[in-house]
């Protein structure tokens, strides 16, 4: 961001850059600045504009939420700025608001910047007045001033400043307007001797009185003029299309299907390219290299065939879909569509005891469950947030779609009448996805009546106006916040799993590989569920990523089946000439395939997701339930299905 900002470039000499970096990581700074504001005021945009890429998430003592912090320098001094969670008021009502209130009280920032939305100034002034009542050095950044002008709302900044007795900076942070001015004002104010003292008793004035004051201030400073009548109000039309009784659901279905379609199709080409480079080219090269430097076979096996191959595999299959899905999703978020989805879905979800915003965490779960779990932060009330976290695994993640599509193509398509194979295959995949939605609603319903009994929350949802998305920021947030985060965790887990998978397949006990003994051990349970021991073993060892399950199944099948194909390393389904023949040879039937499709939907989350659930809930208990619940569902469903199948087929 800073690259677009001339003022930042002119001052960022090397020495200053080094000081900034030190400040960011060592925690030294000349002045601590807090950034507060109502949700949906563009506070994060202001933060990004102020700090550019000089930011990271910091852990502040006693906080449950990680806070983003960044630095900028102005006038030769380093300012550290902390982005506090969006809040309506300092009278702490929920967790996020407590974080903000506590931070302002305990960390005692020197300057507090309140970001206010110019299009809804009256509501935003409540927080301004509350902060001003507690802190002596407050700046009001009136953001979205361009949007307000477009809607015929004119804010008299000088008068507002006089009425509030605080410096006011008009901003259009998306375009970078007012950023330099805000930096300068922060620097000035930090050096100034406070002219007025904040009332010392630390008590907040009554909200109703503050609203009365806010109303008076707005009357004095804001003038409304009739906006130039547009020939066609596209915002209102779009809003109607997205939320009206008859169009809301079809539009939602279409948008979601389109996003998934683009993701699955669009990921193919880059996935193949990466596969060609990392698996087909680099892997044999590393193998030769390992032999060249004289590594023993088992060490080169563990390192190259095990760890490297699993890591590379995860990158190939995960990176492209995520790098497409998450930006598309963030685009919808930036457009303002996602709150409307929550609005549309709340009626259904509330009956299951869930929150409307769970529709969004589920939708993100279709990209990656770990990201879906993190996204549950947007649900303010703890009970509903846990419901969303615990049921997220029923949303089919990116790693499971290819498994379903493969099985469906191999086993369902041939059962269809001629010419309808693809339709049947896709129908079966869709049926599994729909079953997933039904199961997550059922699970939410049951949880709300058992483990998570409690009163439904005071639901409120702010619906922001539809906005033109800010493309650069979409890419930045989605790639940094979601894609890299998820990929990093998955790769970290893939290394030990790769080593384990290799060992299981290549280390022998007696005359037979370890995998044989283990799969024999699991095979009675496998039979009961309509699966086999090899599949269950693959699910155990490939826990780091669902993407690894099919290659592991194939590898184990080949290794244990004594087939003419060389085994012992992960196996690409696309590379097998007669995949169905291979599987049938290993005893697979239609029952195996169908049961596996069910188990693919209902099994424990991958280790990345489990760890994320633990980190988000800070509770081993909830991580356990999130793991056990879908697994138990899968055991029961598959066993029932297999029993019925054997009875009737």
């Amino acid at each position, binding site marked *: 961001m800073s690259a677009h900002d001339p003022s930042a470039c002119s001052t960022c000499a090397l020495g200053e850059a080094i000081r900034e970096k030190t400040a960011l990581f060592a925690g030294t700074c000349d002045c601590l600045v807090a950034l507060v504001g109502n949700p949906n005021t563009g506070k994060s945009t202001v933060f990004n504009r102020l700090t550019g890429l000089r930011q990271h998430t910091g852990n502040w003592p006693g906080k449950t939420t990680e806070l983003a912090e960044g630095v900028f320098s102005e006038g030769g001094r380093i300012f550290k700025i902390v982005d506090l969670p969006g809040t309506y008021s300092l009278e702490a009502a929920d967790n996020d608001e407590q974080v903000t209130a506590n931070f302002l009280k305990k960390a005692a920032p020197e300057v507090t910047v309140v970001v206010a939305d110019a299009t809804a100034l009256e509501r935003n002034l409540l927080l301004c007045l509350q902060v001003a009542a507690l802190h002596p050095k407050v700046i009001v950044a009136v953001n979205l001033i361009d949007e307000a002008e477009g809607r015929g709302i004119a804010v008299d900044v000088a008068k507002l400043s006089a009425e509030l007795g605080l410096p006011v900076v008009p901003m259009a942070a998306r375009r970078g307007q007012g950023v330099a001015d805000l930096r300068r004002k922060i620097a000035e104010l930090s050096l100034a001797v406070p002219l007025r003292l904040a009332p010392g008793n630390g008590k907040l004035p009554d909200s109703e009185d503050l609203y009365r004051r806010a109303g008076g201030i707005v009357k004095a400073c804001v003038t409304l003029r009739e906006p130039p009548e547009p020939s066609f109000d596209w915002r209102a039309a779009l809003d109607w299309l997205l939320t009206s009784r008859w169009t809301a659901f079809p539009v939602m279905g279409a948008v979601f299907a389109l996003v998934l379609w683009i993701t699955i199709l669009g990921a193919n080409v880059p996935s193949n390219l990466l596969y060609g480079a990392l698996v087909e080219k680099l892997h044999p090269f590393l193998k030769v290299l390992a032999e060249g430097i004289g590594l023993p076979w088992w060490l080169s096996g563990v390192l190259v065939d095990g760890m490297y191959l699993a890591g590379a595999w995860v990158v190939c299959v995960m990176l492209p879909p995520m790098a497409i899905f998450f930006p598309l999703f963030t685009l919808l978020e930036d457009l303002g569509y996602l709150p409307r989805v929550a609005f549309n879905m709340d009626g259904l979800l509330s009956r299951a005891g869930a929150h409307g915003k769970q529709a969004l965490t589920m939708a993100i779960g279709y990209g990656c469950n770990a990201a879906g779990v993190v996204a549950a932060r947007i649900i303010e009330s703890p009970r509903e947030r846990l419901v969303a976290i615990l049921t997220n695994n029923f949303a089919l993640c990116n790693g499971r779609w290819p498994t379903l599509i493969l099985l469906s193509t191999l086993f369902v398509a041939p059962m269809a009448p001629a010419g309808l194979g693809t339709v049947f295959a896709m129908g079966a995949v869709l049926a599994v996805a729909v079953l997933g939605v039904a199961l997550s609603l059922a699970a939410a319903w049951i949880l709300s009546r058992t483990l998570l009994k409690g009163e439904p929350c*005071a639901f*409120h949802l702010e619906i922001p106006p539809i906005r033109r998305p800010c493309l650069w920021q979409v890419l930045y947030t989605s790639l940094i916040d979601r894609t890299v985060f998820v990929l990093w965790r998955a790769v970290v887990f893939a290394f030990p799993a790769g080593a384990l998978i290799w060992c299981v397949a290549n280390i022998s006990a007696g005359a037979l590989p370890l995998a044989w003994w283990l799969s024999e051990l699991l095979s009675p349970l496998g039979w009961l569920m309509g699966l086999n021991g090899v599949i269950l073993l693959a699910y155990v060892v490939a826990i780091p990523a669902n993407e690894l399950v099919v290659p592991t199944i194939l590898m184990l099948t080949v290794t244990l089946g004594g087939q003419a194909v060389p085994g012992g390393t992960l196996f690409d389904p696309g590379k097998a000439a007669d995949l169905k023949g291979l599987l049938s040879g290993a005893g697979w039937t239609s029952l195996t395939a169908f049961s596996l499709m069910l188990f693919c939907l209902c099994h424990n989350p991958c280790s990345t997701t489990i760890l994320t659930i633990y980190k988000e809930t800070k509770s081993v208990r909830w991580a356990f339930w999130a793991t056990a619940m879908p697994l138990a569902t899968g055991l029961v469903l598959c066993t029932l299905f297999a029993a019925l199948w054997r009875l009737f087929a």
Partner: protein
Amino acid sequence: MMHCIRERLNYRVADGIASGAGIAAESLDALRPGERARILEIAPHCRGFERRRLTDLGLVPGSVVERAERAPFGGPVAFRLRGVTMALRPATASMVTVETL
């Protein structure tokens, strides 16, 4: 909150009495789309967290709200208030008494 919902029926009766006294009072969720109203009070049985949240959102006596869209399947009702569109579940909205303008 469940408690609030249970009391909703009684509350409706109380509404009727209030209207009888000459004030055209009704609850917020009874407004028709596009209708504007001024907030009279938040029901006394709505307390603590929930009451504060409504106050923080700007639902204080004297504020003017305009009813907007309603979500399908008994979902939330949207209102415009101080330039912001806000959705509340019907059970919550029913705890706010308004007079139509």
